């Protein structure tokens, strides 16, 4: 499906070989960090993790289209690949999975990535508000908000689509339809079968794309950004992909899908696909792939070391970060806590 007017100017330049290689490097880094994080959980380094294995093309490709000097991105709990692509400090990002701080330790304002969001569909409306702020300020930033096939069932998504379309807010709604919401498959979640098909009902253009083709994802996202940036309103992208791993490290997919179903549903691995393509097109060779993997490994090691070195945040932050202007009652509670926990 493609209901986005073709004339979106400026977004049509093809990716250069260097960019294609960069995309591959990012995907390898993300894949390696992702599989490592599952291992970290098994090793007790972190208490839990929500892998995005299989969604690297969708995440790296969309994140690649972001201009961090002016855009703003609203992730869920599963956008590690987007964060990495946007250049977020990955120790600060992964700290949420270490149970250090819910939103992560990175600075959302500087990095242009909103705090990690654990409420399904929780931040979709925030993107609309932020984007409307751009209109009010006469700026040209675009908000991109991520959500899943499962999240599409939430009332807030509808309200966000309608608000954005009524206000012509510069928002890109990026849906990763990964086939599952924990144990519930898309066909029992999304009536009609496609989230992209919903956009027409709001008079909003939409693209349903192969979310496992990183080049297609970059191109579609760039087109959507160009459309939104030029003041023509929001766009919805539905990237068809597959959650190849468990929902999270405490999930047991064997209870609701067979390995056969998994293989059939997942199709070709997006990373392998891209690798074949780069090879076939002569854009990269085995030496490059080996180098990318080595870099990914080195990076993972550094992040792991950083995570392991990460101490707990001081308990006073519980009190100090509630408000900009604290209250006497809260200060009293903090004093009481300090006294009783120092005593111990």
């Amino acid at each position, binding site marked *: 499906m493609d209901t986005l007017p073709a004339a979106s100017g400026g977004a049509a330049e093809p990716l250069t070989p260097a960019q294609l290689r960069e995309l591959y490097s990012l995907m390898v880094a993300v894949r390696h960090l992702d599989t490592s994080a599952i291992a970290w959980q098994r090793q007790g380094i972190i208490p839990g993790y929500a892998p995005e294995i299989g969604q690297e093309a969708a995440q790296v490709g969309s994140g690649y289209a972001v201009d961090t000097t002016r855009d703003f991105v609203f992730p869920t709990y599963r956008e590690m690949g987007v964060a990495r692509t946007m250049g977020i400090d990955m120790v600060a990002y992964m700290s949420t999975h270490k149970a250090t701080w819910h939103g992560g330790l990175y600075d959302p304002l500087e990095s242009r990535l909103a705090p990690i969001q654990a409420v399904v569909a929780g931040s979709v409306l925030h993107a609309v*508000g932020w984007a409307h702020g751009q209109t009010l300020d006469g700026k040209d930033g675009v908000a991109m908000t991520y959500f899943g096939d499962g999240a599409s069932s939430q009332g807030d998504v509808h309200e966000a689509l309608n*608000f954005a379309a009524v206000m012509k807010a510069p928002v890109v709604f990026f849906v990763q339809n990964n086939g599952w919401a924990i144990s519930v498959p898309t066909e029992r979640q999304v009536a009609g079968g496609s989230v992209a098909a919903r956009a027409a009902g709001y008079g909003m253009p939409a693209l349903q794309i192969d979310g496992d083709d990183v080049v297609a994802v970059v191109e579609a996202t760039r087109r959507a950004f160009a459309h939104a940036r030029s003041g023509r309103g929001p766009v919805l992208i539905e990237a068809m992909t597959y959650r190849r791993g468990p929902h999270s490290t405490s999930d047991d997919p064997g209870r609701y899908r067979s390995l056969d179903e998994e293989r059939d549903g997942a199709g070709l691995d997006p990373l392998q696909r891209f690798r074949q393509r780069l090879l076939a097109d002569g854009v990269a060779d085995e030496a490059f792939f080996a180098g990318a993997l080595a870099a990914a490994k080195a990076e993972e090691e550094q992040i792991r070391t950083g995570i392991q070195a990460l101490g707990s945040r001081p308990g006073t932050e519980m009190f100090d970060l509630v408000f900009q202007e604290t209250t006497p009652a809260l200060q009293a509670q903090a004093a009481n806590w300090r006294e009783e926990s120092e005593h111990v």
Partner: protein
Amino acid sequence: MSNSILESETSVESPAAGTVMSMQQALNRALDEVLAENPKTLIFGEDCGRLGGVFRITDGLQAKHGEQRVFDTPLAESGILGMSVGLAMAGFHPIPEVQFDGFAYPAINQIVCQIARMNYRSRGTLPMPITLRVPSFGGIRAPEHHGESLEALFAHVPGLKVVSPSNPHEAYHLLKYAATRPDPVIFMEPKSRYWQKGEVDVARPDPAGGSPTGAKVMREGRHLTLVAWGAMVARCLQVAELAAEDGIDIEVLDLRWLKPIDAAALAASVRKTRRAVVVHEAPLTSGLGAEVAQLITQGCFDTLRAPVERVTGFDVPYPSGDLEDEYIPNIDRILFGIQRVLEYKRG
């Protein structure tokens, strides 16, 4: 709901001290000034724009400040509050309205999980200077869901501040104060008092020099403290007048801030009067009266001569107009509560 008086009074210049106006006018004037003073403030919600709100609190503001600053949204409260979060992240100070108390419920998820937590979640980098106006409480014979008291819910949510004015003067100053804070404030307007007039001294929030965040003694007394907020303050003042005829000297404390609660003011008053009754419209169980009573008991255990009484709405859904006078604490029920406290004898 004629607004002719109002229209001549929405200018930003200060009138003489002690101008008489209704709470609706005082709120409208506060919003007008806030819009003029801070270009980042925005007012929006259902019917806030052209109509000026179903209670006319935003009357004339769209015409004066433009459709970008004051606008109507689609009919979706979660959308309104969720959008506020994004606007706050973008540096704005949203002043959204939910049309009636009962229609805050569809937005509770955004209020509790997002507005109240974003500053914390983002480690102080994404403050939420959102002033949510909620026409609140009962007393106007309205349809179902138009007479709710949500203060206990809001006060329990970490990350929110909650305030309710009891008269036009308080309304003007508390709204101006709330709308300049960097934290989210739920501003609960006692809708049954919108059209009551009173003196507003725009130049002096508190001639006595009190803090804008504390409770306020509205009447001094020696025998018993009545604690109330919103529309119940005026009723308690009436009760105090009646009691005075019987020689009972009642102090009336307007709690004003329902979170954080001014525990020191409660203690100071009750240490003097040694007896207290707390009055609210919300249902009894797990209402804010329990918190107030417990704070008083903690602060004045030794001086208290009787357990704190609560005179409140009942544990029943807010009833239809015919029964609302039975539901809302009336003068008689408050007097009975006072009597129970005064006649209490240690067994």
